[in-house]
């Protein structure tokens, strides 16, 4: 592995002058920009189980309104395409019929599935869109997490495995090689929606940042005075900024245990399951507090869709294996934040140099 990565280690103390942002709370540990020019307009919108936020620099109210309308309509369209909760969605149609035989779908859906399986392949299955049954057995899907019975877990394991999803590009078909398989695009579709929104706003020449639940975001155009800067907050103290990243050429996504987790017998279970051993990932509290555990991963990638999927995979893989997997993706970088006995530790792979220098508030080290 090329050692351009940065690994810094040190004392996890807050600096004397932490950069505190008046940011609204988001689950992913990323604070979206708030203190920007007066002409910035913002609109939030509930979709895909999260809160989308659109910030844009429109010429006037009418253009801003029109931009919000088309973007929010597009996000709704994608929810109705990729949601497994709407029976009329394309994803639901595939989940209903793809085990019976090959189902033809449109190029947009096919391409998203192909991208998802590509990430699965390159990450050794750390990202897996078939993990839905497992997520359900742990109760995370209904946001009522619980410890499943062994038999229930074993049954769920039978219905998981990205290799059982067979795509045929020549016919544009989807086939499930195992009955009971169910696709869940929750870890990639939000990123794709951000990409589509940005694409639409770019086509009309409007500068904008689009954010899904403060975890996936991308931007287009020149932004005001200081660029589309977003701060990556500490997973243990949202007021503490780990570093700042300028969006534009690359999109950003963050995965973390903050989104959904629960504690049982001193162990913390996160909604981010490891599809390879089918147990929830253990975060760094309770019995295993002495070991370093991933609390949060942020990925920069050419598309928000890829960043979204990779942030989940990098969380599952951790720094060492994640860095190796990430080397297969062009122009992608990641920043892991680990817990440790004495605070948090940041480890980067190809993390932007300038931004890395701003790691002044957290524990960090270098390899």
């Amino acid at each position, binding site marked *: 592995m090329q050692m351009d990565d940065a690994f810094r280690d040190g004392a996890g103390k807050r600096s004397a002058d932490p950069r505190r942002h008046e940011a609204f709370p988001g689950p992913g540990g990323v604070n979206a920009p708030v203190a920007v020019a007066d002409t910035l307009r913002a609109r939030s919108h509930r979709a895909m189980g999260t809160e989308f936020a659109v910030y844009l620099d429109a010429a006037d109210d009418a*253009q801003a309104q029109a931009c919000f309308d088309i973007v929010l309509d597009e996000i709704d369209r994608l929810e*109705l395409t990729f949601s497994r909760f709407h029976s009329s969605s394309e994803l639901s149609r595939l989940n209903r019929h793809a085990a019976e035989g*090959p*189902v*033809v779908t449109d190029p947009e859906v096919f391409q998203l599935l192909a991208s998802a399986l590509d990430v699965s392949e390159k990450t050794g299955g750390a990202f897996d869109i078939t993990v839905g049954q497992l997520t359900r057995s742990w109760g995370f899907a209904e946001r009522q997490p619980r410890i499943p019975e062994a038999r229930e877990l074993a049954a769920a394991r039978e219905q998981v495995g990205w290799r059982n999803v067979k795509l045929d590009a020549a*016919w*544009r*078909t989807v086939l499930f090689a195992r009955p009971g398989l169910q696709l869940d695009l929750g870890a990639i579709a939000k990123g794709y929606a951000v990409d589509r929104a940005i694409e639409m706003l770019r086509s009309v*020449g409007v500068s904008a940042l689009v954010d899904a639940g403060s975890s996936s975001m991308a931007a287009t155009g020149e932004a005001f005075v200081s660029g589309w800067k977003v701060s990556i907050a500490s997973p243990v103290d949202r007021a503490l900024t780990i570093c700042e990243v300028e969006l534009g050429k690359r999109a950003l996504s963050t995965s973390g245990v903050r989104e959904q987790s629960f504690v049982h017998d001193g162990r913390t279970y996160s909604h981010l399951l490891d599809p390879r051993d089918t147990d929830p990932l253990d975060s760094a509290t309770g019995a295993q507090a002495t070991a370093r555990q991933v609390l949060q991963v942020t990925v920069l990638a050419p598309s928000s869709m890829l960043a979204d999927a990779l942030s989940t995979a990098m969380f599952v893989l951790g720094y060492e294996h994640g860095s190796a997997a990430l080397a297969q993706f062009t122009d992608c970088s990641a920043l892991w934040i680990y817990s440790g006995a004495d605070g948090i530790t940041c480890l980067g792979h190809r993390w932007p140099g300038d931004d890395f220098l701003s790691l002044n508030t957290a524990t960090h080290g270098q390899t």
Partner: protein
Amino acid sequence: MDRREFIGITAAGLGALSLGLQDCNSPHSVAPSDWVNVGVIGVGGRGQHMIRMLLRVPGVRITGLCDIYEPRFAEGRKVTGEPTAVYTEYRKLLEARDIDAVLVATPLGLHAEHVIAALDSGRPVYGEKSLGRTVEDCNCIRDAVRRTGRIFQVGLQYHYAPWYQEALRRIGEGRIGKVTHIYACWHRNNSWRRPVPRGQETQLERLLNWRLYREWSGGLLAELGSHQINFANTAFGAMPESAIASGGIDYWKDGREIPDNMQVIFRYPGGRTLEASYITTNRLDGAQERIFGTGGSVVLTHTDATYFKEPSDPNSAVPPEIAIQHKLITGPTYSAEQPYHGKGESPISGEAEDADLLACREFIDCIRNKRRPKTDEQVGWTEGVTVALGNRALEEGRRIEFSEYLGAAASASQQPPERNTQS
């Protein structure tokens, strides 16, 4: 079969292939001769959406994209997933040899020109709703379909939704008594405006925001109300006799020419009424049709139907146990003059498919089996004329008698024709 040859609409196709579930989804079972190449005239938002839907039907390929706004070509090709041939002139697309059927998704004021040319080229045509902008446009399209004998389907996709069909069946069986009123609304809280690229506002405003200008648009009643009007015409089994309307440009005063809010009351034969409301400043009520019968009610949305009983009518659409459960009969929460806030009965749920996909599947199936679509030119004509005359009532500020425009001879054709019931 060479579909570029004459395709007649025959009864022979009616009892023909009934595709099984797997055949609905898999392209492997489609014979090479049954592949349908579709050319698309109008590749804006609606056109792109319908391309996606068509490409979910096995054995369909998009082989031509036509638009006068060049950025649509790249957008359209992204949706088709291939470097589809593009045309800036629709007549060039219609001259192409590799097109079996045509989708027309252009601005309303252009429907007649594009649909008729496509029919005259010998292809089956899927024409987006509303049928035509004026009564004359609607007449011309209907006549062209009959003159050419080609398959024509108007884009009233909710007509294919199972919960709509079930509602029509129950209404037809008298399950909610005699239907006397329908209240339809499509309430939004947005400007209905699309953003125009910076620096090109002058050149592109009317092209991209055609819905806001009279030359091309039938406004809210055409773009939104047509589905609801089609439902009312079908449920009542008739067209309206008259219309009165109110509305104006009262909130979005941005240079648009069509009303940003509109209310129309249509009177149907037998003293029945459709009251339709369209606003762009509040979305509490969203899009729904509330069908009121003497024995019960149905509330239709884009995804489901819910039935309610009239407490005084023993012939309830809601089984007694549901009525009791929701305290309709004996409970203290119901008072005769209070609105009912409880749950109703939703008989169809779980596996409903997208209405646009169902409509596209119908179109392709009709082509393969030489079958008449459920939403044919006559269904489109009744819908399109109702919309056009509802708009005229507002424009002229007076009560419009449909007979003024349709003549005495029209009364015979006001009744929707017998529908074949094949699905």
